């Protein structure tokens, strides 16, 4: 009887920890991808290379091709010159492995969504024309 009361609380804590762990791991991978992308962009001034390296960095994430969005500013390669600022924004719609619905409290909690948007922006100075 008592176990029936205690077990959901302990299970909730455990699933919460697992969710937080996966979320932070995805967050790290997204920020690493943005860093790699901006570095490649500042050295080569090639949008295909930026997108290619981001795709490669995110390959461990689930459905990364469908769930990832990359914004490069300035978007045109010809608009970027040596010394300019290059900005790469990577967004990933992260699907939490467990949906945690509480019998009480806010219905729309952090882990009760279909996906959480993880964003990372990296800025660097252009090193090539």
């Amino acid at each position, binding site marked *: *009887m*008592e*176990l029936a*009361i*205690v077990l959901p*609380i302990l299970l909730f*804590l455990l699933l919460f*920890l697992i969710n*937080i*762990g996966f979320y*932070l791991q995805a*967050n*790290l991978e997204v*920020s*690493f991808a943005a*860093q790699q992308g*901006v*570095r490649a962009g*500042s050295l080569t001034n090639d949008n295909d290379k930026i997108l290619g390296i981001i795709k490669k960095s995110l390959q461990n994430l689930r459905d990364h091709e469908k769930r990832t969005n990359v914004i490069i500013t300035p978007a045109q390669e010809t608009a970027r010159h*040596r*010394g300019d*600022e290059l900005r790469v*924004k990577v967004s990933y719609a992260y699907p939490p492995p467990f949906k945690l619905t509480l019998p009480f409290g806010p219905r729309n909690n952090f882990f009760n969504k279909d996906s959480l948007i993880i964003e*990372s*922006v*990296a*800025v*660097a*100075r*252009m*090193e090539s024309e």
Partner: protein
Amino acid sequence: MSKIIRQKKEEGSVLVIVALFLPVVLALLALLINSGIFYYIKSTQAGMANRATASAMSVVADKMTEIVNEKIKNDPTCCSPATKVWENLSDEDRIFLTHNSQFKNQVEETLKEYLQKNMQNTIPLLKKAEVKELNIAYPYNYDLADRFLKLHLNFTLAVPLVLQNERKIKDIPVEAESQIRIK
């Protein structure tokens, strides 16, 4: 003689044990999350610092190109296009690149600018983070024989912990280095 057997009522003891240990479990949980965040910040901020130092170092590389281009403009035979840009630098040029205070300031300003730009775009948790004790060593370990010009960045990031009172701030040291070769 009959024995009197006392029976203890043990129902509900699990609840008492859990209630007693719940603060301990929650404290451990807070500790785990805080240490996770500590390592998360450490790794993302190291990347941020690397981008800032690389951006600042590219100012030095651009200056080298500018010096050589200026030399070619004045005397087209001075430099060989077959050799690399930095091979055409004189010792005077190298002294300018490493010791000129105005140029040094320009490099340091670029570094600070890109550090700030990358800081603004991190997770919401770091919006409250502050850079303190910023040290820029330029040039770091410069030696003509060594022929490496290094830029060393060292700063402390003060981050408020999530599951603590905001007055409790954790100092996270971050370090980065970028180098360029002058041959």
